[in-house]
């Protein structure tokens, strides 16, 4: 029972990060219909930026959001404006292929830049563990959880309470009507893309101390984030949030209760089961 509790807690902590990254992808999808197959690779790019900041400039990962957020923000804007905007109206699978091309470039660019070896990032919080009852909580995971929750909270607040957030929802619900209402669709789309990337950048900063990564680990994260988005109901942000936690817990459970290689399959099994039973996601489609 103790082990189960530990598994659930660990899963929730990591799942929150998955949620936030998936929220970024969900945001991008709802605003433009683009399925970003390179999302995981952008996350890994963020991780590498954190690595370089840490090893070459001695910056602690938890300071790097000051770097990763603007860099990713700019990157998101550029990718949307110059690569994706032209083709976003086409067939979704074809657009996804373009993001796949971007993924190739990112992965191999990082290979060229930093080499093929798996890397780790050190941080202040490393090694600090708190014991609460029977559960051990690593500080790095706690920080990640709190940051992710704050980001998610900020995102929800923006969506519900600000005009900008309302314009996002309007565009998602009916693009033409939104345009007729005077919303500058172009501007909102570009801004949202950039924002989604910035969120991913901040997530990368707090995620870096938790994982080892190489140039090609992006695909794995892309898949997990895809699963979370689909299980969450594509555009239902609350659903995505919940789905991230669920997938986090399943992954933790899989790695503990199943033998090594099979453990990594747990999220996929969970995904297949959930989506067959609830094709519109955990909480349905409506956002």
């Amino acid at each position: 029972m103790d082990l189960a509790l530990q598994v659930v807690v660990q899963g929730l902590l990591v799942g929150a990060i998955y949620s936030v990254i998936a929220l970024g992808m969900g945001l991008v999808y709802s605003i433009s219909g683009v399925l970003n197959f390179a999302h995981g690779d952008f996350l890994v790019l963020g991780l590498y930026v954190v690595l370089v900041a840490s090893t070459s400039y001695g910056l602690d990962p938890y300071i790097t959001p000051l770097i990763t957020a603007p860099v990713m923000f700019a990157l998101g804007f550029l990718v949307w404006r110059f690569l994706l905007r032209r083709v976003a109206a086409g067939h979704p699978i074809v657009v996804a292929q373009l993001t796949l091309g971007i993924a190739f470039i990112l992965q191999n660019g990082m290979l060229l830049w930093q080499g093929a070896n798996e890397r780790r990032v050190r941080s202040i919080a490393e090694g600090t563990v708190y014991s609460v009852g029977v559960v051990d909580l690593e500080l790095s995971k706690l920080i990640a959880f709190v940051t992710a929750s704050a980001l998610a909270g900020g995102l929800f607040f923006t969506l519900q309470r600000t005009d900008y957030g309302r314009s996002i929802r309007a565009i998602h619900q009916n693009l033409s009507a939104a345009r007729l209402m005077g919303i500058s669709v172009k501007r909102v789309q570009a801004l949202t893309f950039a924002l989604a990337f910035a969120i991913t950048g901040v997530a990368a900063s707090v995620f870096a101390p938790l994982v080892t990564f190489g140039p090609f680990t992006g695909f794995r994260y892309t898949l997990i984030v895809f699963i979370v988005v689909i299980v969450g109901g594509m555009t239902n942000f609350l659903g995505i949030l919940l789905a991230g936690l669920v997938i986090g817990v399943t992954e933790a459970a899989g790695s503990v209760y199943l033998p090594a290689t099979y453990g990594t399959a747990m999220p996929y099994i969970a995904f297949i089961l959930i989506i067959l039973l609830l094709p519109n996601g955990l909480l349905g489609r409506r956002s």
Partner: protein
Amino acid sequence: MRTISIRSWVQVCVFAALCLLLPTVVADQYYMSIAVLTMLVIGLCVSWNIAGGFAGMFSFAHTIFIALGAILPALLAIHHGISPWLSMLVAALVSAVAGAAFAWMGNKFQLNVLTFALVTLGFAELTLVMVTGTRSLGGSAGLSIPGQLSIGGLVFDTPSKTYYLVMVCVLVVLIVSVAIRASKFGFYLIALRDNVSAARGIGIPVLKYSAYSMAVSAAFTALFGGLYTQYFLYMDPYRVASPIFMIEIVLFTTLGGLGTIWGPVIGAAVFLPLGEILRAQVGSSVPGLPEILTGFAVILVVSFARTGLVGLLGSLIGSISRLPARRREASGESMTANLDPPERALFPRIEPNSGKE
């Protein structure tokens, strides 16, 4: 009602002629081996296209069929000395049933294109995990194939010989593909692809035809998976059981022209040798550069040739061969109107908010 046009036959014959001529121009066994690899991947792309392109069953589950075609003959040959041809046939039949099962699953749970794609991708990932995690299936080291492929006394031990064998198989699946496209079966598949609800409303038996398309596609995929492994004499799980390979196949097909007959052929024929040769020339000195260039090529093709290379070629040929086209333009027909079939935008948008079916 099978009416394959003369035009299609001519195209197939031209393709066959080009393929037959290739070995006479290429003497170097190294380039021949690239040619064999290209042929194998063309076969896989054309097979996948029957389900993914014609019927809109965007499936990554084909990884399972490739794996079946690769592993079953290997295991049966190693442990029981059974001829790979027989086991490839068995693998094809099993894959056909499995393919139909996936079609059933898609139908039963009313999965839209995207969800079906991702569920099958989930299965593909599972396949990799299962294969690499199970020692008797080769684990992560894979399996070594005991003997070369042979028919009667003829042993396929050189790339040139294997090339002819694979070429014949590719021609077979191409003719099947052409025949399907020209038949009522093919029409039903296109209807399924474009609008399942409408197809159902007209009375097309959705389950039956999507199952047939997956079955045919799966069987051929298994065949080429087997040929692939037998040629390399090594079952590499990180190739044949990997969703990454599947994604490449889908990528080549899409870049060439999803849902067309020659799209998968052109896509594979252009991008695979490009990648291989780039990798050989540049890959050792600058690792990753070939893939970066491939990525750029992908972006270029998607940005400027929305319906794939086939569409691009079509409009090029159309604009050259129909220079006195003023009358046509005035009558509203597009430059590519004479291409069979008219290649409009191929798929409906995936509606984010629709409850689907």
